[in-house]
């Protein structure tokens, strides 16, 4: 799989097959998956992303789930694995725009809180400060 293809026109954007990464502020990136995303090749995808992000002083990666109507255990495992990998280089992954159907389905089979944080949208997370709109591991 060809890995990272930085855009010549705009260094703040980058394309990995199935993923579109955009810098949206100092230390913040937005990751938008497309239909072409092949999560079965997650090793390559994670390596490409980590390689791209670790030299950018990124602290937060917003993963946009607006197109993901259903999240099944395989996709959930991908999200968790990506979040864990990003934590190793001190990047917090926050999933935004999770659809009601996806949250409904996900709540049926998950027992433990996910590794990633969740927020309604980017501004929702920023308003709530760094502890996040909802850090899944934050005690009540």
């Amino acid at each position, binding site marked *: 799989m060809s890995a990272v293809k930085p855009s010549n026109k705009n260094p703040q954007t980058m394309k990995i097959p199935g993923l579109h990464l955009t810098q949206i502020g100092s230390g913040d990136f937005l990751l938008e998956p497309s239909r072409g995303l092949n999560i079965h090749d997650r090793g390559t995808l994670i390596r490409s992303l980590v390689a791209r992000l670790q030299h950018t002083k990124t602290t937060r990666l917003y993963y946009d789930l607006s197109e993901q109507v259903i999240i099944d255990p395989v996709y959930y495992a991908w999200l968790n694995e990506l979040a864990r990998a990003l934590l190793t280089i001190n990047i917090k992954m926050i999933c935004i725009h999770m659809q009601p159907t996806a949250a409904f389905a996900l709540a049926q089979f998950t027992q433990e809180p996910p590794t990633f944080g969740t927020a309604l949208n980017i501004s929702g997370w920023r*308003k709530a400060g760094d502890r996040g709109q909802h850090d899944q591991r934050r*005690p009540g």
Partner: protein
Amino acid sequence: MTQKNKTMEKNGLSEKLAALFSLKIGNISATLEEPGRKFFCGDSRLMDEDDVADFSAEFLNLITVLLGSKEPFNRESPEFHALEMFFASLSRKILLRGGNVENVVRYTQLLQHTLIGALETDSGIAFSQSRSVLLYFTGVFNELIMAVFRAYLEEKEQALHVQEEALRETATPITEIWDGVLTLPIIGTLDSSRTMLVMEALLNRIAKDHARAVVMDLTGVKNIDSQVSHHLIQIVHAIQLMGSNAIITGIQPEIARALVSLNIDLANITTRASLSDGLKEAFRLMDIHVSRKAEQ
């Protein structure tokens, strides 16, 4: 004998049936009003005499068009379809006015006999002695009774749907009490299907209103079992996954005891004693400060 009659007889129709299809029907509308008066006027007060006269005339017009059509046997013809629509509409009208389907079915059956009698009197042809004419009308009116039942079922289904919607709304009275803060008081028994209903409505509302906090008040819930408590945790979990904050308030002592005995882990769930405390927590999470206006 007309050309049409001859063609029909060639096609195997009996003489009386051929005569029926070529009949110049006179004004028998007044006779056809009798069944309508019997079933829909009087004590039942489902219609007044003018209504009955109107729809009897309309029926006569439609049946005349069908009998005179090129294909009086064709159940797919526009003429027959118009007759079906007429009975479906009549059925709906009667049901909406508080009548029952039996009224309409009995009316349709009596109308069949009255129509044959009226045609016989009007034309002087003994239609009631013809097996083929009786069979033809039985076939037509059976289909019309089916149309009446279909309309009845559609009406019932629609009523059920409306009731379900009303129940759904009363079962999940979600209110946006502040910008981005939803409250959901749950009253009565929480079973699995209701919990699922609540969950679906709540998640859709969070997405619609971009709600950042949801306060679920359980003050009105008296009983909870293991399955429902797990569903409750699932609701909270789903709310958190959407990026909103869930706050559960008003847990009654019996519920608290049940949750403990069921080994339900509330460690990741924000709980407060009362709805008021829950709202304060929601405001705190959203950095909203509510204070009394300073005295002048």
